[in-house]
């Protein structure tokens, strides 16, 4: 693959985005791609808006992208998709979780959670919406939501040649592996 693919993962601190990015990157490396991943730590992680970027291809230089450059945007939280949408290529795909986390101005009543996020996205971009929260509850643990989204991302990117189950086994505590495999498979089906 000559052309470098750019993946942008966004959400809220604490949603497990970095773990997904890490496993995604590990899988891509195993598949023989050059890969770079960039993440943020510290202050931003405390309930703030969080992004990671994964780039893979034959030879990758920059670990980060600018506006209009992501092939796929995966948003772990609904409103975050709209916040970062400028980074998506006009012909790119946005995968958005319907899960809502009110930010502090919303929680304190100073602002309202936007009601039309999905419609607004669908109007401009190829949009895949899913309810990873519900899927995670069905699997048996709301905390596997990020892995459901991981499955959905793998499906959207058509990265079927990689043994993702093995990557899950290598990166998760052993007692959490089975439930997360279920969550991942659920994500593939959504």
């Amino acid at each position, binding site marked *: 693959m000559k052309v470098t693919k750019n993946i942008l993962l966004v959400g809220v601190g604490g949603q497990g985005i970095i773990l997904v990015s890490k496993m995604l990157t590990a899988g891509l490396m195993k598949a023989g791609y050059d890969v770079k991943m960039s993440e943020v730590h510290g202050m931003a992680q405390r309930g703030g808006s969080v992004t990671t970027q994964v780039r893979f291809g034959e030879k990758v*230089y*920059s670990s980060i992208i600018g506006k209009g450059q992501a092939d796929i945007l995966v948003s772990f939280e609904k409103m975050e998709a709209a916040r970062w949408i400028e980074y998506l290529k006009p012909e790119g795909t946005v995968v958005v979780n319907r899960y809502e986390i009110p930010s502090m101005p919303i929680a304190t009543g100073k602002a309202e959670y936007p009601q039309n996020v999905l419609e607004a996205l669908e109007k401009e971009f190829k949009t895949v919406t899913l309810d990873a929260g519900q899927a995670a509850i069905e699997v048996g643990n709301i905390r596997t939501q990020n892995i459901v989204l991981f499955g959905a991302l793998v499906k959207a990117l058509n990265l079927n040649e990689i043994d993702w189950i093995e990557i899950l086994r290598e990166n998760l505590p052993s007692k959490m592996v089975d439930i997360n495999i279920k969550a991942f498979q659920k994500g593939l089906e959504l």
Partner: protein
Amino acid sequence: MKKLMSGNEAIARGAYEAGVTVAAAYPGTPSTEILEHMVDYKENIYSEWAPNEKVACEVAIGASIAGSRSLAAMKHVGVNVAADPIFTYAYLGVNGGFVLVTADDPSMHSSQNEQDNRYYAKFAKMALIEPSDSQEAKDFLKEAYKISEEFDIPVLYRVTTRVCHSKSIVELGEREEVGFKPYTRRLDKFVATPANAKIAHGVLEKKLKALEAYANTSPLNLAEYNENTNIGIVTASVAYQYAKEVFGDKASYLKLGFTYPLPMDMIRDFASKFDTVYVIEELEPFMEEQMKAAGIKCIGKELIPNMYELNPDIVAKALLGINTESKTVDTNVVARPPVLCAGCPHRGFFYTMSKKKNTVIAGDIGCYTLGAMQPLEAMDSVICMGAGISAAMGMAKSFEVTGRDTKVFGVVGDSTFFHSGITGAIDVVYNKGKMIPVVLDNSITGMTGHQENPGTGKTLMGEDTIALDPVDVLKAIGYKTVAVVDPCNLKAMNDTVEEAMQATEPYAIVTKRPCVLIKGLAPFKTKCEVVSDKCKKCKMCLKVGCPAISFKNGVSYIEQSMCVGCDVCMQVCKFDAIVKVGEQ
């Protein structure tokens, strides 16, 4: 063997491969994981969290004098704290190789400024090395130790957030068993008296000349020529990656890894081959200024911003006028500022203070900086590590001498107290300050991701050690009363603050409750829930600023997946509409 590594992980690996035996640091984003990964090599490397960056730097300098290859690591502003020893150690020169890693944070992802620490190399007269990805972060470090020992000089190793926190593929090497340099007492070399320093300065200037000559031949500085190009790009660090991304083979590159002293002959020769020479560097025109002073025609900050981090998009726009097409969507996106976590013990203190009139609160660097955010907004200033107490002292003195009766509180965390809060607290007692130091002790260094500190009873290497209690320290330095309070108990918290405001003798407060994110702690057994028909919609519970609480369908709502059951919200509810649920 190939491994996916962050820049920080790769620096730790580089230290291992270079034969380092002593490493010290104080945590700070984006540098923290360097020492966290140093522990992976604890068979070979002693590593420690020092109480602050100056101590870390001095520990590493001492180890270097004793003959070890040593490393100190810190974030950019940490180098300000550590600046005193490095200026003098540059005069003295090393025994074992000494490298100071500075992790700069362009765009201030997690910092109070975005100072460009390359100037420290020029200012303190050290060699400067800048890797651009994880592979270089490892490999260049080995070169740094050779340079340090060969030229008898400290090396400043400058990385940035996107080097530290980007993961890329690294080819690992073996550890070089360099052992240690023999130690002999050398009064003329390591005792910085004025007489010795006068001589040392002259010697240092000669070393810099020799280093510049070496820089022109260093394997860290490489020219990459592409055919039929009339653009030459001089670049370093991660900016090189952005330049490659934008220009590909349409330009030639002088990619510098050794950036002070600059290889000016090499740059002049490279620049002479092109019609247009761009200097692509993040933040300040560090290389550009020196090139222009040397008479080399180049374009840099005329076009490229000197603020915030770069990316390929910014470079393409600045130099080629390319605007990448992008689209927004038509919806009202609401800001999402960082907040204190659900169950954060700091909340009780800041909520209490948010109700106090005629008070000023000097804050500090840590999770508790978030006490300044809405809706708590219980903070008046944040400057740097330690200023929480000492700036509060200055405010209190100003109010006192100008006849204003505002009460001043100074807030630091446990790790910050040990870092540089202690000295401020001593000043308050010594100079009779009428202010109240408050140590928010959550038993961990929180914001940087849970590092041990002198109060936790554990070392970086995982050994048990003496746990220093801020209460004992404050008593020892002269505080007559040190009130200890659980900040999640709002009544006790309020009573303590009231008592402190009436106190006539030195009075300090230590709030004690561990961070809720400490693994395996689970301090609360039950969660909180809103009884909808009891909720009077007064929104009092929203004023504690908990991310688990919001107003939904006309009543307060507590998100169960986030609530940890600290019950601060329950204590502020006047209508008993919040109850505990789950097993006791």
